[in-house]
C-alpha cells in the first residue's frame, strides 16, 4: 500500500481539524487521544518551535564566546519536523536521533537545562558531560541519542522496534536521519529488516537537500527518496517539512498505522537548514538566493501568520511567548554555568556497568 502524499493533503487535514478550537493560549501541549487538536494547540506548537529556535540562537552566542565547544549542528529552519513528529509520539514511544538533535531532544521533552548543561560538559548534563552536543541521551524519556555516525542509529531503532514487536507491545520507535544517511548501507539494511519483520518503526528522513556540502542531486542517482523507500514494501509519504501542521498530520497518520500493526512507515520531510552544516562550515556551496528563498518559508513565521489571520495571535501574545522562552533559556544557561564539573576522578566511570547493576 505504498503511496506518496503531497504536503497539500496533510495541510488540508490539519486545517479541517482546526474547527472547534477556542481562541487564546492554554497550556495544553498535545492533541487529544483521537488526534484532534485541543484548544491552544497551535500556540503550543509555536512555543515549542520557538523554544528550539531561541535555544540554538543562544548556542551560537555561547559558541562564539567559547562557552561551548565541539561540533555543534543547528537545526534552525527545521524545527517543524522535530515538533510535528514528536507531537504524534507518546511517552512510551522511543526516539533515535542524529548529531543534529537539539530540536529532537527538546521536542521530546528533554529539559533545556539538561541539554544546555551537556553542551557545557557539566555533571548535570543529560549525558553527564560525556556526550556534548552530538550525544544527548535521556533514558527515562526513551530518547536514545545522539549518534554522530551518519545512519548509525538506524539499526538500533530497528532493534528497539524488534524488542517491542517480540513482546507484543504497540509502542512506536521513531528514528530521524538525513538525506545523506539515506545513501548509507545501514539505511537500506534497516529498511529491509524493518519491512521484512514488520517492525513498528517510523523512519523520518529530514531531507534538507544537503549532506554537508553535497547536494541531493550530487549524492543520489534517484532523488525521489520516498519512492525508493516504498520499494522496500513500506508506505512512504512526503510532507512539507516547513509546515508543522502538515508534519504533525502526516506523523499522526503514520504512527497510527504503525501502532495498528502495519509495519514500518517512511516519512520524508522536505526541509532546509538556514544555517551552515556546523559551526565550522563556511557554507560556500549554497547560493545566497536559495537560502533567502527558503527563509521565506520559515516554519515559525508560517504558523504565526496563520494564527494571526485567524485571530489566535497578536504582538502582545508573541512578545509574552518570546519572553517566557528566553527566560527559560537564561535559566538553563545560568544553571549550566553554575553546575559542577564532572570530576576527573570519575573519568573511567560508565565504561562498563557499575557493581550492583544487573542484566
Amino acid at each position, binding site marked *: 500500500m505504498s503511496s506518496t502524499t503531497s504536503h497539500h493533503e496533510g495541510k488540508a487535514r490539519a486545517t479541517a481539524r482546526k474547527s472547534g478550537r477556542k481562541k487564546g493560549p492554554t497550556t495544553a501541549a498535545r492533541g487529544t487521544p483521537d488526534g484532534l487538536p485541543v484548544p491552544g494547540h497551535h500556540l503550543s506548537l509555536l512555543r515549542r518551535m520557538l523554544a528550539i529556535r531561541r535555544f540554538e540562537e543562544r548556542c551560537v552566542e555561547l559558541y562564539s564566546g567559547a562557552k561551548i565547544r565541539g561540533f555543534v549542528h543547528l537545526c534552525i529552519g527545521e524545527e517543524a519536523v522535530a515538533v510535528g513528529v514528536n507531537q504524534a509520539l507518546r511517552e512510551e514511544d522511543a526516539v533515535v536521533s542524529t548529531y543534529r538533535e537539539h530540536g529532537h531532544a527538546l521536542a521530546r521533552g528533554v529539559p533545556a537545562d539538561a541539554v544546555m548543561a551537556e553542551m557545557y560538559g557539566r555533571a548535570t548534563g543529560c549525558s553527564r558531560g560525556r*556526550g556534548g552536543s552530538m550525544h544527548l541521551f535521556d533514558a527515562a524519556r526513551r530518547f536514545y541519542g545522539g549518534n554522530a555516525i551518519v545512519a*548509525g542509529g538506524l539499526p538500533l531503532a530497528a532493534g528497539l522496534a524488534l*524488542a517491542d514487536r517480540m513482546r507484543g507491545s504497540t509502542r512506536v520507535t521513531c528514528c530521524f536521519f538525513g538525506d545523506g544517511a539515506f545513501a548509507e548501507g545501514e539505511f537500506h539494511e534497516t529498511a*529491509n529488516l524493518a519491512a521484512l519483520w514488520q517492525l513498528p518503526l517510523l523512519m523520518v528522513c529530514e531531507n534538507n537537500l544537503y549532506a554537508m556540502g553535497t547536494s541531493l542531486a550530487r549524492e543520489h542517482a534517484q532523488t525521489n527518496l520516498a519512492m525508493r523507500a516504498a520499494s522496500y514494501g513500506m508506505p512512504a509519504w512526503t510532507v512539507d517539512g516547513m509546515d508543522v501542521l502538515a508534519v504533525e498530520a502526516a506523523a499522526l497518520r503514520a504512527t497510527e498505522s504503525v501502532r495498528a500493526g502495519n509495519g514500518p512507515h517512511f516519512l520524508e520531510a522536505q526541509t532546509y537548514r538556514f544555517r551552515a552544516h556546523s559551526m565550522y562550515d563556511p557554507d560556500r556551496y549554497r547560493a545566497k538566493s536559495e537560502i533567502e528563498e527558503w527563509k521565506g518559508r520559515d516554519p515559525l513565521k508560517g504558523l504565526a501568520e496563520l494564527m494571526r489571520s485567524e485571530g489566535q495571535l497578536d504582538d502582545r501574545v508573541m512578545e509574552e511567548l518570546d519572553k517566557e522562552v528566553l527566560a527559560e533559556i537564561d535559566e538553563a544557561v545560568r544553571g549550566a554555568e553554575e553546575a559542577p564539573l564532572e570530576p576527573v576522578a570519575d573519568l573511567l566511570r560508565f565504561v562498563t556497568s557499575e557493581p550492583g547493576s544487573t*542484566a
Partner: protein
Amino acid sequence: MSTRKAPTGTSRPTTYREALREGLREALLQDERVFLMGEDVGRYGGCFGVSLGLLEEFGPDRIRDTPLSESGFVGAGIGAALGGMRPVVEIMTVNFSLLALDQILNNAATLLHMSGGQLSVPVVIRMTTGAGRQLGAQHSHSLEGWYAHIPGIRVLAPATVDDARHMLAAALADPDPVLIFEHGGLYNAEGSLDETVDAVDLDTAAVRRSGTDVSVITYGGSLPKALAAAETLAGEGVSAEVVDLRALRPLDDATVMASIARTHRAVIVDEAWRSGSLAAEISSRITEQAFYELDAPVQRVCSAEVPIPYARQLEEAALPQPATIVDAVRRTVS
C-alpha cells in the same frame, strides 16, 4: 581435546559444538528475553551446526534468520538489548564482523559511557575466528585482538568444552556487551564435560597444566597446540605450565604474573599476526609487571604476517604449531 579425561560418573564426553548448543538451549529455556539471531541460524541450523534443532524447539521468533546485513542485524541486536531483550547475535566469522564493526565499537561499546551511565547494552555477539581449515584469507583471520583493544566490551575465547558450555550464561548475566570468539577448529573437538561444574566465571584465566620451567600463555584454538607442545617438552624433561587466558578483555594479569613468578620464563602463543597483537600486549604487561622475575626474554609464537593462504602446507607454515611452540620454549630454557 588434550584435556580429555576418561568419562567418569561426574563427566561425560561431548563436542565443543554440542556444548555450545547446550549452553544456548539452556539460555533460551531459562529466560524468555533471550533470542538467537543471525545468518542461517534457523532453518540451516547455523553455518557450523551450533544451533541445529533449536528452530524446531523455539520457533522462528526466537531463532531468527536474518538477511545478509551484518551491520543491520548486529545493530538491531544492540537496539533490542536497549529495549530490554537479551539477544545473542551470531556472526558467521570474525571476517564478516568488520561490516558490523561500526555498530560494535561506536554503539555497543560506547553508549553506556556516552550516555553518562544511562544506557547499558546487554548484548552477546558470538562469532567464529581462526584458521586451519584451508578456507583462504577471507575466512581464516584471527581479529579478536582488535576487539580486545576496545574499552566497554568483554571479549571471551572459550577453549574447552566446559567454557563452551557455560560462558554464554555468564555472558548473558553481564549487563554490558560481550563478544564470544569460537575457534573454527574446535567445533569438532571432543572433550569431557565436567558435570559438577554448573557455572564459570569470566574474570580469571585458568592454568590448564602445571609446570615449573616455562609459562606458555595462550587462548582459544591454540590451547590444544600448547598442551600438545607441553606433552612433547615433558618427554625432554622440560616442565611447561599452560595458561589459558579465557577472557581477552579484561585480561587477568594476576594469573599470568603468578605463573611467571613460578616459572620465570614466558612464551605467548597467539594465532593473530605478531605486529600490534594481543601477544604484544601481554608481553608488554609482563615487562611492566614481572620484569625482575624473568630469566629469559619473552618469546612470541604468532602467525606469519601474510593473509592466511589456502594451500595446506602454506597455511600450516603460517600458523603456530606444536613444533614451533616447542622450538620457542627450547630457546627460552636453553
